[in-house]
């Protein structure tokens, strides 16, 4: 991508069927994307100085599933992966995350996540997007992944298996990625479910300095070569688990590579 491109021109170049009001058939809004990615762009380039490696592994068009790790804190990594697809890909691509269900129940959060293409993580939504040749972003660790503490920031927790079944059913390539830096930006030492309950979210992370405001840690994301598995999605759990383990192992190795390449957090 040309760094001089304005966010508006990047959004204009997205290969999505926007109507003349600026909405695609899912309600994704050009106006909301420009606002969201203008803010994310600043965080991506200036604050977290994100380096994206292996972008050539992401298909420029057609269906694909970005599958990676949460690196701690909250879903900061997800937002920066979205930014890397919009800011660094040629042509720019909108990655569409599968959001936690509670986000759709939050005023403002619901509207913004949907207008920016981040829908509730339901199998029906995911399958439809892939059949429509969209780029899906999946974190198989789920909320347990974002709840990692600082000391666990480079580890992986259990993976769900639904993403592999979906990839098989829809004949979608999986593009594994390893993200490092989220846990340094939000060095969580404790997650409070009680405070989370009061705020309508699963938990609220706390850091040594109190609130989980992100520090300007350097982040790095490495995209690996696409992984393709043959099947229908109806295979036995054992077969699916084998594929999941292959993806998990690939992500673990990408995390290690990214960790070495990045050096220190600052």
């Amino acid at each position: 991508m040309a760094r001089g491109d304005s966010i508006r021109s990047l959004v204009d170049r997205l290969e999505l069927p926007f109507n003349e009001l600026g909405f695609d058939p899912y309600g994704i809004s050009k106006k909301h994307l420009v606002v969201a990615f203008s803010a994310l762009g600043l965080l991506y380039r200036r604050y977290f100085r994100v380096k994206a490696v292996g972008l050539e592994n992401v298909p420029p068009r057609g269906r694909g599933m970005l599958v990676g790790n949460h690196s701690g804190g909250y879903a900061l990594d997800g937002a920066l992966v979205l930014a890397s697809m919009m800011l660094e890909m040629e042509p720019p691509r909108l990655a569409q995350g599968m959001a936690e269900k509670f986000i759709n129940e939050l005023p403002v959060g619901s509207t913004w996540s949907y207008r920016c293409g981040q829908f509730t993580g339901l199998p029906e939504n995911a399958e439809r997007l892939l059949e429509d040749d969209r780029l899906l972003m999946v974190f198989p660790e789920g909320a347990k992944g974002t709840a990692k503490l600082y000391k666990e920031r480079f580890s992986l927790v259990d993976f769900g298996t639904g993403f592999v079944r979906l990839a098989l059913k829809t004949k979608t390539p999986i593009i594994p990625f390893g993200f490092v830096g989220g846990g340094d930006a939000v060095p969580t030492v404790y997650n409070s479910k009680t405070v989370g309950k009061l705020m309508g979210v699963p938990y609220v992370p706390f850091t040594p300095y109190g609130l989980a405001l992100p520090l300007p840690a350097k982040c790095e994301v490495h995209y690996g070569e696409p992984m393709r598995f043959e099947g229908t999605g109806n295979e036995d759990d054992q077969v699916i688990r084998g594929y999941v383990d292959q993806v998990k192992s690939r992500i673990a190795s990408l995390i290690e590579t990214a960790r070495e390449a990045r050096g220190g957090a600052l």
Partner: protein
Amino acid sequence: MRILIVGIGGALARRVALLLRDAGHEIIGLDRRPWWDHPKDIEVHEHDIRKRAAEDVFRTRHPECVVHMATVNALSAGGEERARINVGGTKAVFEHSVAHGVKHVVFVGRHTYYGASAESPLYHTETEPPQGMGAFPELADLVAADLYAANMLWREPGLATTVLRLVYTLGASQTGTLGSFLKARRVPLVMGFDPLFQFLEENDAARGIVAAIENRPRGIFNVSGPAPVPLSTIVRQTGRTGVPLPEPLIKRLLGRFGLPNLPGGAIEHLKYPIVVEGKVFAQATGFAPEVGEVETLERYRRILAGP
């Protein structure tokens, strides 16, 4: 073909009747509401579908196809009476059709069947069950009528049954749930939420129903419109003013200060979308809307603005 339209007094049903008549069909109408200036070549009977006289129309006129458009959708209508009409009326339509040799029944239901819920998929397909009933029990009678009609697919295999789940309509009649909602100059919105709404221009909706009658597909079909649009944009494009109100406040204000009198459960429909996938119906009938979403809104803006 001789076609009986039950509920012919409604604006959409009249359009369907005129389109079918123009296509060369013989049209008979049944409704307890009058259609004062109906064309002479359309025969209209003023009876309640649940009364004996209505069955006489089936018995004496022997329609080949019956189109059931007599369900009440207005959420402001009284709950018990609405339920009696929607469920009792649907039962009567099918009982009379089976008893008097009707070959095809088209039940015109609504896409609100699926319910608005935070946990629903964005696009609904015909195989999904209704959701959000707990939050909106007032929808129960429409859902029951839809399910009763769908049951006929296996209970009466000799009768071709088509169940349509039609999106909102906008057009010159200014009727229908969304059309009526937009009639007020100020339209309440739930602060922080902006659901997608899907709609068809009134003539397109009528064309969709005609396509179901003429192609006689058996089964359950979503009849979708062009691409859905967020409610706040619909409000703006039709020249209305959106008034975003916090959810706890909006519940207290409904029915006052010029805001529509909606049941509490309807708030969910102002928070979460009901969008349907219409691919199956398009494949079965070849139906596609002629008027796009932007043009439909522009036309409705002009209608609301008046001459």
